């Protein structure tokens, strides 16, 4: 949009991931790249944060306690305010069903965590937050 007033504030990335180590290393890397991170360890809290804080991007795991990632994605997509937030799926469930499902729900990228490097994830975040 080229709004100069907003450029000052760092962009916010919401990370919804239940594994503590993975959440930690992701948060470090993304913070190092100059983004602000919001962290959540379960689906319900993640959804609340997504609707409440209106982050610029969501990194979403699919297997989550309380509310799974697919449900979270559906709810975000159904919310007028939040539906434009880009969501990048980070999961270890590589079954084609999951991939197709989430890509149909307007997810721009889908990564299998164990096959992806942090650099690739950062690249994807930058691509969507230009």
């Amino acid at each position: 949009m080229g709004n100069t007033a907003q450029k000052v504030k760092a962009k916010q990335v919401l990370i919804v991931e239940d594994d503590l180590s993975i959440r930690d290393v992701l948060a470090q890397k993304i913070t190092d790249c100059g983004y602000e991170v919001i962290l959540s360890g379960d689906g319900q809290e993640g959804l609340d944060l997504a609707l409440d804080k209106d982050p610029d991007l969501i990194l979403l795991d699919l297997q989550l306690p309380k509310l799974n990632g697919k449900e979270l994605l559906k709810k975000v997509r159904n919310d007028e305010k939040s539906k434009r937030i880009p969501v990048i799926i980070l999961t270890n469930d590589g079954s084609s069903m999951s991939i197709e499902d989430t890509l149909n729900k307007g997810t721009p990228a889908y990564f299998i965590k164990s096959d992806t490097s942090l650099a690739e994830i950062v690249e994807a975040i930058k691509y969507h937050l230009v």
Partner: protein
Amino acid sequence: MRYFDSVKYLAGRTLQYRFKIIITSIIIILLFGMVNFWFSMKVMSGIRSYVGGESLWSKSQKDAVNYLVKYSSSHDQADYDHYLIFIKVSKGDRQAREELNKSNPNITIVKEGFIQGGNSPKDVNDLIFLYKWFRHVSYMESAIKIWAAADGEIDNLTALGNQIHEEVAGSSPTEQTLQNVYAANSRLTVLENDFSSTLGDGSRGIAMTLMAITLFMTCLLGALAVTSAVLIAKATVRLDRAKTEFVSLASHQLRTPLTAINWYAESLLASNKPKRLPKQQKQLEELYGASQRASRLVSDLLSVSRLDLGTYQTEIKSTDVNIILNTILKDLEATIKKKSLQISKKTDKHIPKIKLDSRLLTVVLENLISNSIKYTPERGKITISLSIKKSRLIVNISDTGIGIPKSQQAHIFEKLYRADNAKEMEAHNTGLGLYVCKAMVDRMGGSITFESVENKGTDFHVKIPVIVEGRSHGKYGTKSKG
């Protein structure tokens, strides 16, 4: 209740044991069925021979009476000779029967008798078989009694024949003698009819019994076959479930810690390099490399499980093969540079978009190209060509690598197989890559072949049927990862 008891008994055993029991039972029933069939045919054939023999017997007896009556008026010796020939027929059968009644019958005499009785030599064995085994069995026994009763009448007829012969020599046979012949003839006719109907009833009974046995065994066999089919299906389902469980276990329990190791190692490698000793840097690189290998292994195992289980779902969509190829080469750039490999791409710039499962194609190309890179020594050459001919995507990947030893070429698509020279060069690989490639190419309905000379290089050829779209831009763009 017995049936359920045996089901309970089987349910407590191992699957292998259950199969053993069921298969043994099927074999026993099949053997029993074969014996039953052979026996039935033999019995039915014997009965047929007796019925046939009986009609011959009764025809001969009637002919004998006719010639005897004719002789009494014609006084022609030829007629009497004919009578003698025909009366011998019934005597032959009698000889056979009487011999068979002995505790230790002389089979030669029996056979001679039956043949004299006008029976076909081919039927004789069946006649003997039936008599031996069934002479004391209901209908057969009654039939034999009737048959033995006819003996007296035949003796009587023989005596009358002799009497007529004497009377003809003297003057003319008396009316009374002829009346006696007629009387004997009608009594024999009654006996013959009795014999026929008794044997007929018997054969019907036997046929019904045998049919019932056959039907029962067929049902039993069917039930066993169904039981084993159900067992096999159940076992397969259980095995599939176990495999699926393993797949999800591997994917979630293994991938998550591997991801953490991968990313921490990556973070460490990306930061504060000058503060590390060269030895520490090397160790960190090793750590990162190993965890990435482990991740790849898990991914390969998952692909194999999905393909083996058939749970992989094909997804056909518009694809730009050039983009796929470039992405793969970009990912492998570092290794290519490190080994100073010369990669030449021979692809048509205006290659049309095609419809296929791009994920399958990506894995196949990734595997083949990374194999070429792995097994080609430094400064080697790899040529990749892509083209579309007649609705077929044709991929050729050739390298100047270590090749595949001739004696091992037949096995390289087997799961976990690795050629000796490949093992020597890259100790860490799993032998799943080409297996996965083959399975995926098969899945796409294509073919994968190769030519290879050891120490010279390998050419892989992949042909995949595709739907070629128009030369214009496709409706759906392919978004790359970044």
